[in-house]
């Protein structure tokens, strides 16, 4: 794997997938990849939210490298709640 890439485990609605991501890219770039790899193509990326293992919402415009994710990091991608009524 090139030096500028890393692997991340993303849990999409409970389903695990491994992403190869560019460290210098913003975090939001992994959302599209994770959705493609898990066959979740029905909703645009902005309808999903990404959290760390502690449940904290992650800033999507920050570079992936700046998070200093450990090698066994798991990120959780879940569909947002729509408008209730």
């Amino acid at each position: 794997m090139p030096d500028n890439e890393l692997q991340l485990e993303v849990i999409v609605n409970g389903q695990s997938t491994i992403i190869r991501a560019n460290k210098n890219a913003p975090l939001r770039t992994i959302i599209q990849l994770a959705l493609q790899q898990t066959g979740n193509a029905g909703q645009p990326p902005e309808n999903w939210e990404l959290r760390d293992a502690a449940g904290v919402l992650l800033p999507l415009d920050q570079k992936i490298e700046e998070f200093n994710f450990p090698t066994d990091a798991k990120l959780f991608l879940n569909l947002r709640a729509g408008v209730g009524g």
Partner: protein
Amino acid sequence: MATPQYTDPKVSRRKFEREVEEYRRNEVAYRSRGWILVEADFPRVLVVLCAAKLKPAAVITGVRFDYSNYDAAPPSVQLVEPFTGEPYRAAELPTTLKRQVVGPALPPGASLPPGANVPRLVGHQPLMQAYGPEDMPFLCLAGVREYHEHPAHSGDAWELHRCIGAGRLVRLLEVIDTYGVRPISGYNVELVPRIGFAQNEVPE
């Protein structure tokens, strides 16, 4: 009351097992967030949600899922008393899953002088809805059986949400946790002082 199983039970059972298996694979991470899977016996799952960051930690609510007929039909989701499994009535809910909603910029017909800042009205809308305090509340969220069976949501069919995992166990827990548990930041303690008369002696 048990829901009649009208789809092939093998299919629903397999999909139910997949939900539970995927949950179990990351159970340690979920437990550290305060999610405790107590029971998983087709078609039902009971998860207890705790506010793990409070000192002492607090048990907030149980969540019971019923995956009968999944995923021809969405799961039923109820907030239940965690120790007895009894569903909460609206007045008993420990949390109503309030979310912030931004209202319209201005009431219809109102206007502001040019250049004025347009105020935005921000309100709170509970995701747990009921008609009255004694009614059984339901989670007003696409992906939940009670939502799709409600006549007001006949235009938002389950089939529109099924393919994106709206009824999946972890996704529903995430929503309930986000709006119902995570915002709890501490304990509210109300002390009510009572004033009476002190009496030193009781005369004969």
